[in-house]
């Protein structure tokens, strides 16, 4: 099967507009006859479900949480990008497009990214209209801040809770449609199987997590908006329940998995504190607007950070990347932190951390401004700190509180200790321009697809992509498929394909329950995470990846022999839910290593130690690897398909933030 990305012809700047005006439509009467299944209710899923229902489609939405409002988009902190140019600093759709392509290290698809940049402005309008309380200036206009990898201020935010506010906006739109009867909501349901009839996605098997019963659901199209798979690393900033199961079942049913090894390691997370640690907590990238990252210039320096004088601190990001300084993209900041720690400059008890210090900007940037507002001519340090602290508190108060709550250290007094952690996965189901996977009728939106961020995502772009896909892209592109489906009557869930899919799911569950071994699901997950982090994490090499593949295979075999799942199938059984997810991670982990091993270059978040410049920067191989790796599942192995990337509007160069 050849991959067709179906990118419309024409000029990049007008391609999407033209597509919108020529794509086949479904008339309102027919929409009412068409059913769409949306799995996942984060930014992409909730916005898609709400919008499609507004248009008149019959929608069924599923989420594994107890309410659609709890999807992990809610935890996004810093903001959402949009090319509004409200700051008059030279921003434009093209610049956002360019920054995103460059930030992704030239491994994303031009047409998709340009469309994303175009839609970005409408997202802000839509969110404001639905009551999202973005931060504002005293004049009543919207406020912006900077994020990594850009030199303009285009990030809209709501304190450190932007994801929450955007998700609640989309959720309110979704609930409105639930109230109107246009969406049927299934919370505490997990998709466990795709149903394909005549090669097309026609429904899903979902497990009711409260009763444990399997349910059959028909849809003319199935939208997977199920987020990323960072939890394959066990420790990540993802929610405990975030999983790959839906996407993986789609993959097993024929959908290609794109760039699985592209993982984003976020540079500013609270370091691991003990073996019992269940997850890692992010400290928003927005903190890098005002926080300066440093380590001592001396190795193994055990002094208290406040006792280390200015001249003995190494602000290594500012030193290495003067143009972008502390606001380099995430992959670069993460690797630089790892490099320092590996070279014994790390701080804290574990020595696996660097400092993120607000004192300078608290005093010099905010303290001075406030002092000047108050007409204090020659403020002393104490006054500057006192005044600056108030401003910092207003900007980042909730993040500082959270840091203090977790570490028991006051970041207003002592620099934060931070270390990189798994945060986002750029890889995902392969999709074409319509966001359709290679299985007709099955779509992937948001983080669940691979399309927009290449090998590294810029901060504040995940929210943008999720909402662009849900509010503005899928409502248009789905017409391209559904307009041909208007004669398809709803298929009975007694159809043999539904029966077979349910049987497969049921057998899989019974198999897991029948093992009754000795080890907990959690312990397997933890072990898998360790393999992934050590050998397929921030730095990878051929030897490590080969070892990892063997280790994962062995672990998987052991899992199916020795895992112990308490309780029974037909009840509320979180351990069983987790077991199903970990079983899928145990397969995905292998594919990620296979992909990382195959890609003999470094790009963005994928850093192969064998391929680096003399200064330790990622060394791409555009000649041989300028494609999306789309992996087809062949039982126990995978076959690679290449979706070539063409850059017609952006000149490819080595990414530099110096």
């Amino acid at each position: 099967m050849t991959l067709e990305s179906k990118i419309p012809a024409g000029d990049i700047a007008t391609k999407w507009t033209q597509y919108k005006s020529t794509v086949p439509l479904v008339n309102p009467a027919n929409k009412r006859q068409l059913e769409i299944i949306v799995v996942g209710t984060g930014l992409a899923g909730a916005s898609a479900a709400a919008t499609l229902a507004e248009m008149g489609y019959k929608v069924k939405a599923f989420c594994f949480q107890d309410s659609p409002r709890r999807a992990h988009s809610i935890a996004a902190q810093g903001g959402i990008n949009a090319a509004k140019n409200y700051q008059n600093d030279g921003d434009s759709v093209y610049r956002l497009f360019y920054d995103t392509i460059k930030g992704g290290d030239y491994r994303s698809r031009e047409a998709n990214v340009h469309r994303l940049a175009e839609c970005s402005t409408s997202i802000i309008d839509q969110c404001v209209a639905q009551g999202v309380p973005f931060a504002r200036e005293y004049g009543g206009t919207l406020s912006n801040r900077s994020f990594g990898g850009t030199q303009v201020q285009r990030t809209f935010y709501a304190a450190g809770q932007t994801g929450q506010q955007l998700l609640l906006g989309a959720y309110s739109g979704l609930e409105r449609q639930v109230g109107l009867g246009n969406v049927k909501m299934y919370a505490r349901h997990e998709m466990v199987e795709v149903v394909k009839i005549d090669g097309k996605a026609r429904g899903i098997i979902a497990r009711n997590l409260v009763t444990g019963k399997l349910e059959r659901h028909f849809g003319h199209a199935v939208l997977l908006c199920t987020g990323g798979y960072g939890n394959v690393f066990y420790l990540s900033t993802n929610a405990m329940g975030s999983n790959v199961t839906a996407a993986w079942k789609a993959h097993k049913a024929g959908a290609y998995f794109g760039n699985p090894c592209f993982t984003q390691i976020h540079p500013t997370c609270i370091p691991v504190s003990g073996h019992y640690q269940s997850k890692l907590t992010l400290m928003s990238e927005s903190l890098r607007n005002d926080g300066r990252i440093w380590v001592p210039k001396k190795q193994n320096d055990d002094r208290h950070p406040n006792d280390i004088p200015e001249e003995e601190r190494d602000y290594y990001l500012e030193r290495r990347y003067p143009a972008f300084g502390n606001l380099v993209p995430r992959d670069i900041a993460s690797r630089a932190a790892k490099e320092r720690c590996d070279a014994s400059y790390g701080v804290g008890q574990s020595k696996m951390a660097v400092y993120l210090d607000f004192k300078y900007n608290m005093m010099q940037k905010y303290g001075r401004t406030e002092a000047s507002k108050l007409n204090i001519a020659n403020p002393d340090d104490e006054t500057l700190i006192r005044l600056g602290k108030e401003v910092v508190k207003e900007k980042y108060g909730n993040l500082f509180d959270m840091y203090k709550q977790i570490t028991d250290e006051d970041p207003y007094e002592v620099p934060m200790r931070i270390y990189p952690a798994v945060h986002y996965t750029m890889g995902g189901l392969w999709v074409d321009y319509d966001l359709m996977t290679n299985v007709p009728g099955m779509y992937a939106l948001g983080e669940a697809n691979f399309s927009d961020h290449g090998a590294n995502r810029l901060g504040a772009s995940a929210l943008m992509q999720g909402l662009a896909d849900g509010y503005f892209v899928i409502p248009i592109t789905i017409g391209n498929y559904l307009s041909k489906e208007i004669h398809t009557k709803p298929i009975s869930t007694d159809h043999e394909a539904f029966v077979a899919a349910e049987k497969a799911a049921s057998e899989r569950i019974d198999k897991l329950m029948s093992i009754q071994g000795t080890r907990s699901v959690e312990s397997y997950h933890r072990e898998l995470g360790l393999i992934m982090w050590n050998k397929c994490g921030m730095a990878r090499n051929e030897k490590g990846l080969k070892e990892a593949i063997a280790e994962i295979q062995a672990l998987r075999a052991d899992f199916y022999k020795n895992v112990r799942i308490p309780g029974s199938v037909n009840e509320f059984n979180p351990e069983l839910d987790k077991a199903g997810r970990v079983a899928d991670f145990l397969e995905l982990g292998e594919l990620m290593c296979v992909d990382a091993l195959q890609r003999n270059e470094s790009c963005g978040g994928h850093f192969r130690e064998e391929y680096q410049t003399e200064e330790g920067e990622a060394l791409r191989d555009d000649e041989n690897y300028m494609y999306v790796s789309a992996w087809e599942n062949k039982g126990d192995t995978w076959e690679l398909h290449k979706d070539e990337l063409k850059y017609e509007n952006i000149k490819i160069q080595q990414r530099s933030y110096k």
Partner: protein
Amino acid sequence: MSKLMKLNLKVWRQKNADNAGKFEEYKVDASPDMSFLEMFDVLNEQLIETGKEPVAFDHDCREGICGMCSMVIDGRPHGPKQGVTTCQLHMRSFNDGDTITVEPWRANGFPVIKDLTVNRSAFDRIIAAGGFISTNAGNAVDANSVLIPKDVADEAFEAATCIGCGACVSACKNASAMLFVGAKVTQLSKLPQGKPERETRVVAMVNQMDAEGFGACTNTGACAAECPKQIPLSVIANLNREYIGAKMNGK
């Protein structure tokens, strides 16, 4: 490494909604740096190892924002610390040798599913009744075309930080959901975009809230005191005001 604390737990165990539950006692060693939920992870590992059923509890993001975690700890939702969710509560807030009682949210509007897990779908139905601004994707005007004074935006934001966890209901002696409803009504009624349907909204949401079996507010303030996001009691006054206005207007 900090010293381990020895804790006695009294945990509510209930097989499902149809069964009566009871407290069971467990012993757990915990590090002061653990979160309360990580302490429960340790307990569950112990239970699984000894062939017993682990305690079912809701949790997801573990960073205090999804609103899923929900334990009543020594009679207080989210435990003794103010302004934090259960997942952000750390064991250093307890002492070696403590006996800690852990129960689910208890309210008729939140039936127990299993152990410490409850069904909070009533909140979704309240939002579905009116907790939104009726606007379809695609017909919004430019975001800066309506100016919103910073203090109004801040006030709306403060109310909008509600995570829908239900601690307010569980803390209230009447199991009232008015802090939750008040927060949403306040957010939307303050913003110019939400004003056109403010009257129908508040009436619909209050009707649904009453139908779900939540009690009336008697202004004890327990909800605001226990709210992990510190939503102020003033949102309930605002809810009352909006509601009275709408009713006196014949809505």
